[in-house]
């Protein structure tokens, strides 16, 4: 059960009724009052969201998924496969044109319906998906193309096959590649940023996070299960985990928030997607000006200072002094 979907039910009814009235030619004071009522309801429902509500926003079945972003690009040519074992449909990558700029795009791809979700493994990437990503990153670097990633996964695939094919090595490989590629890397956390499986394609020079996306060291359910042996206490865990865009901007872990329309990105997705692309474009313009050595050095220092220890004596490392 998605708490946002539940909450939307009353609102959707009201919105539908307004639509009907408008079709029937209703206008004037009655209409205005109704619209104000809806607006107030929207603010009431979505004006401030808890961490858990944002988790549900990030998992909303109508939320824009990677393919929606890819469709908004000028062009996209998918490249397949890790060259060794399998083409992982949960990790989509390829050449693209973003506002006229040639880029390499990598994205975690959920499905819109059950069938597609099964094919895409619900956006959970297998080792061969991360290896495809590594390959395409190296290809991008080879031809001086910036890398743009769209992050949306509950986490790396935790299945038997993925363990058998060295999921750890695959993620570590992606991270190693991203530390090496001398081209701009921009990551957009657009939905769920699930732990190491998300970070694997999000170690970036610039990280944009959708307002209602979440990015977390562990899933709230997993966290609650570990701490209290009770996955149902996920809402509580979500608060602890500091996984919202505001939290992470504060920690310096994301660089920019892409504001969402009231009620979430899915309520007016086309302009929101453009806003994310705006952010990516700005970041790419800025980063394109940096010489390769400076780019890599800035990337190093960006992460070097997260939870870093400075000065002498027993200073606390996590304190973010």
């Amino acid at each position, binding site marked *: 059960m998605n708490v946002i979907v539940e909450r939307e039910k009353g609102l959707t009814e009201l919105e539908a009724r307004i639509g009907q009235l408008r079709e029937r030619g209703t206008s004037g004071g009655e209409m205005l009052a109704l619209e104000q009522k809806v607006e107030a309801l929207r603010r009431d429902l979505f004006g401030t969201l808890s961490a858990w509500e944002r988790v549900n926003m990030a998992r909303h079945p109508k939320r824009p998924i990677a393919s929606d972003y890819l469709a908004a690009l000028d062009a996209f040519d998918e490249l397949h496969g890790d060259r060794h074992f399998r083409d992982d449909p949960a990790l989509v990558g390829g050449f693209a044109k973003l506002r006229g700029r040639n880029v390499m795009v990598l994205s975690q791809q959920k499905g819109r319906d059950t069938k597609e979700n099964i094919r895409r493994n619900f956006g959970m990437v297998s080792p061969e998906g991360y290896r495809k990503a590594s390959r395409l990153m190296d290809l991008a670097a080879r031809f001086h193309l910036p890398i743009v990633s769209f992050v949306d996964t509950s986490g790396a695939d935790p299945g*038997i096959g993925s363990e058998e094919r060295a999921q*750890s090595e695959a993620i570590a490989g992606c*991270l190693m590649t991203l530390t*090496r590629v001398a081209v701009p890397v921009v990551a957009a956390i657009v939905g769920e940023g699930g*732990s190491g499986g998300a970070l694997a394609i999000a170690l970036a020079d610039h990280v944009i996070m959708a307002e209602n996306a979440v990015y977390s060291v562990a899933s709230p359910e997993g*966290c609650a299960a570990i701490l*209290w042996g009770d996955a149902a206490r996920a809402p509580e865990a979500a608060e602890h985990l500091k996984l919202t865009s505001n*939290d992470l901007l504060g920690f310096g872990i994301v660089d920019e928030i892409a504001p969402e329309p009231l009620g979430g990105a899915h309520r007016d997705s086309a302009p929101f997607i453009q806003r994310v692309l705006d952010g990516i474009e700005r970041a790419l313009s800025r980063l394109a000006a940096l010489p390769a050595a400076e780019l890599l050095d800035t990337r190093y220092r960006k992460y070097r200072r997260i939870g*870093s220890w400075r000065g002498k004596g027993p200073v606390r490392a*996590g304190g973010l002094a």
Partner: protein
Amino acid sequence: MPVPEWLRKRREKDVTADDASLWQKCPRCSEMLYRKDLVANLWVCSRCGHHIRMHAYDRVNTLVDGDFVEIGADILPGDPLGWADKRPYPQKLKRDREKSKLSEAVVTGFGTLDGFPVALGVMDFNFRGGTMGTVVGERITNLLEEGRRRRLPCIIFTASGGARMEEGMLALMQMAKTTLALQRFKAEGNLYIAVLTDPTTGGVSASFGFAADLILAEARAAIGFAGRRVIEQTIRQKLPENFQTAEFLLEKGHIDMVLDRRELRPALVRLLDYAVGRQRVAPLKAVPELAVP
């Protein structure tokens, strides 16, 4: 095994558990083992061969020739998220510190192995399940940066349940930070060996655990990305006994060697010899004070 000067100094404040009792029970076969014999056998059960998890300082002590110069011991955890569930995070840290006699989940420093000077990191499962928070990330990063500056091989013994939840995304970002440091370290031709010990999973496994030039594992160590329970919950069935063991991973081609703990040090020395050659120095007596950035 004699207690060297560096360790005796350390033990003035942190008395390791092995001084505490005469006998210890093997957690696998339940044999009562005479503590002194167990130590001499590197904490390997003389009956069933089980590799009992080692204390980080004991591990260091069984590896280095003589002296060990620890760095990063003054990097201590904070509470960046203000985390409090049943107990506030600082209390958990305090309790683990007392229990483990460690200031955090990794010990880092410099010593020599049969004359080879190395940068050495040893994780310890007794401190917060060996989870990587900002301190582990920072200490490992410092070790790699300092090792790079000195052009030394680096050996890291992993033992970790993954990223530390109580430090949230700051913990996860240590995967990025350590990997960046590792990239620079390796890019200059320095040798990095990971030794995966029981258990190694999650964010440590998926960063400096598996990004090594050479990956060794201790016999029967549990190694993977996802934890065994997570997988069983996902697939709703019991996993085979050998799944995610070091031996399983060897067969699946993930790691270079699986070794009995008692063969580990000679193997490391041979590997150092192959990869960096006989540039031995006299056993490290003193290391000049470090300039940690």
